């Protein structure tokens, strides 16, 4: 697809059917996917180059998300995506699985520069055009009488679009109000590690960012305190991405072994300059487990208190947001529920929670979840806003069990977006059994429709990952779990028998398994 403007400054201000804002993984992936459906759109970004937050963070320059150069599936295959959390998705072989070739072999977590290079290479190989250095500054809604849609004011001029896809990350540093918080500095403003040599450092916050900093400062700081009101959660305990990742747990081990790190469940009362101190700070805390008050003298206090969503004035024109992160209130298709035609991609996609079964969230906040959301979102926009007919290939009923088993073995969407994305097979009155592709599970559950079966993978927080089939018969949904397999293989004879027995409830004339 060609685009307006010259190659170095594409997409001059003006009208476009869809406008994408952001050039991180979310913006790049959704642009790729929109183009795949032939949807004309512009992409603008305030950054000078692709990469989004990975142009700067994580602070200690090593990602949390892995890419396995040597995996059980061939590099570049669809199944390989399960083991490569960082490459973006493409049909063209030259734009697939780009991350492993850019890694130096020292870790299966790419460094920040390796991730940035991966995203830049994707933009180049996939031909994603972006107008860089163009900052979104304001938004107006256009009356329906005047054609509807939105006007985006930018530093380059005004864009008008019928639909917006906002992919600007959850990247605006957030420091909660409080007495003395001006004496802290945020994760985003942390100095080079060596400048903390011999310091006493307190981290407000016990999530990944707080533990990442504590871990990185272990060789430098004299003492480290991590404090927040609720107990630290660890991913190896929650069996999900909710919680501090394993590679940042070292400060906790230091704490429980008495090495000098303290991990406190305490709420901040106030921070003040220490009387007669040499620039040091007194941090006053109140333990949340017993109400005891603590006063700790520190040299630096860092707010590892997270980030908010920089969606400018969208709330002023009707986009409801919630919580401290100011995430928008969205449908399962990532569309604002209060400001139609405004969609969200990338990290902001975590605003759509789905079922959160057993307390296990989807991975929408990470690249390996958000990249599939972007593909599904582009298809949704194409179908609902541009009348692109959905692809619904027919499937012989005799192939259904094999197809489901094969998807359970390989489908990266199902492995990465557990209990959020589902593959749907529908008994269409006219066309017979059709493959309705990947959809948000909650849409399948709530929208109703003809007899069908939706296939997902789920986790229950015990460590098991198992397939779940949701049959829909005469409008009634039934949830059927397969037995968890410790080796996570769901395409063998036992699993196929289970799948057959479940699917047969929805399709009585399903041929017997060989």
């Amino acid at each position, binding site marked *: 697809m060609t685009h307006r403007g010259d190659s170095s400054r594409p997409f001059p201000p003006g009208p476009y059917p869809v406008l994408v804002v952001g050039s991180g993984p979310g913006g790049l992936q959704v642009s790729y996917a929109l183009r795949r459906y032939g949807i004309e759109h512009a992409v603008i970004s305030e950054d000078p180059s692709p990469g989004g937050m990975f142009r700067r963070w994580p602070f200690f320059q090593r990602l949390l998300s892995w890419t396995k150069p040597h995996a059980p599936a061939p590099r570049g295959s669809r199944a390989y995506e399960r083991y490569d959390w960082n490459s973006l998705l493409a049909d063209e072989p030259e734009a697939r699985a780009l991350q492993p070739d850019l890694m130096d072999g020292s870790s299966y977590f790419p460094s920040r520069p390796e991730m940035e290079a991966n995203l830049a290479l994707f933009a180049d190989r996939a031909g994603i055009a972006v107008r860089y250095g163009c900052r979104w500054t304001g938004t107006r809604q256009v009356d329906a009488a005047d054609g509807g849609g939105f006007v985006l004011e930018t530093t380059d001029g005004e864009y008008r679009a019928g639909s917006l896809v906002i992919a600007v990350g959850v990247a605006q540093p957030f420091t*909660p*109000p*409080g007495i003395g918080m001006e004496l802290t500095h945020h994760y985003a403003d942390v100095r080079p590690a060596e400048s903390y040599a011999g310091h006493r450092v307190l981290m407000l916050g016990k999530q990944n960012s707080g533990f990442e900093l504590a871990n990185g400062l272990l060789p430098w700081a004299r003492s480290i305190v991590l404090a*927040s*009101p*609720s107990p630290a959660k660890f991913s190896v305990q929650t069996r999900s991405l909710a919680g501090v990742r394993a590679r940042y747990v070292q400060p906790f081990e230091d704490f429980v072994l008495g090495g000098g790190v303290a991990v406190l469940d305490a*709420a901040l009362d106030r921070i003040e300059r220490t009387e007669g101190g040499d620039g040091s700070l007194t941090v006053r805390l*109140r*333990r*949340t*487990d*017993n*109400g005891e008050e603590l006063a700790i003298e520190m040299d630096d206090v860092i707010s590892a208190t997270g980030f908010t969503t920089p969606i400018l004035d969208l709330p002023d024109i009707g986009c*409801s947001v*919630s*919580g*401290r992160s100011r995430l928008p*209130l969205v*449908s399962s298709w990532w569309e604002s*529920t*209060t400001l139609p035609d405004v969609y969200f991609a990338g990290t902001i996609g975590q605003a759509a*929670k789905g*079922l*959160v*079964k*057993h*307390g*296990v969230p989807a991975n929408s906040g990470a690249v390996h979840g958000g990249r599939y959301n972007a593909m599904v979102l582009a298809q949704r926009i194409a179908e609902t806003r541009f009348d692109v007919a959905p692809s619904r290939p027919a499937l012989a009923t005799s192939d259904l069990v094999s197809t489901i088993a094969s998807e359970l073995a390989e489908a990266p969407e199902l492995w990465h977006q557990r*209990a959020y994305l589902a593959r749907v097979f529908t008994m269409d009155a006219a066309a017979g059994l059709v493959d309705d592709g990947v959809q948000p599970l*909650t849409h399948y*559950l*709530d929208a109703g429709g003809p007899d069908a079966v939706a296939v997902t993978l*789920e986790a*229950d*927080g015990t460590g098991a990952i198992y397939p779940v089939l949701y049959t829909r018969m005469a409008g009634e*949904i*039934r*949830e059927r*779990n397969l037995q968890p397999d410790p080796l996570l293989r769901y395409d063998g004879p036992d699993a196929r028998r289970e799948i057959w027995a479940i699917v047969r409830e929805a399709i009585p004339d399903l041929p017997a398994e060989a």
Partner: protein
Amino acid sequence: MIERDELLDAISGFGLFADLSAPQLEAIIHIFDERMFAEGETIVHQGLSGSGFFVIVDGEALVEADGRELARLGRGDFFGEVAILLGVPAIADVTATRQMRCLVLPGPQVESFLVSQPKVMFRMLQAQARRLRAANRSGT
């Protein structure tokens, strides 16, 4: 900490948390997650496993089982506990009839939470007893 204080004020008036001290209330808002639901969104699906325990901070919800209205819930009410306590799939649909703000505790964490907060468990038991009495009176 405006949002935190506002939330503390809100839940301190809820019957479920009526016996808790200020530090205990503060702990509550950090143990629970906060979630918003759009008007019309189904929060709990009858027959499905793995849902959570919800306390309504703002908004209204409709409880239906097999298409029959069972209750309307509002600020301070809670739902989802029966399936968790009995270890069964959700016994009703719960749908937001107005935009809702809830505190949510995942099912697997409910037992340890109630054991650590016996006053909350007692209040929940009282609410269940009232519901049982009402059900007996209505003959359902």
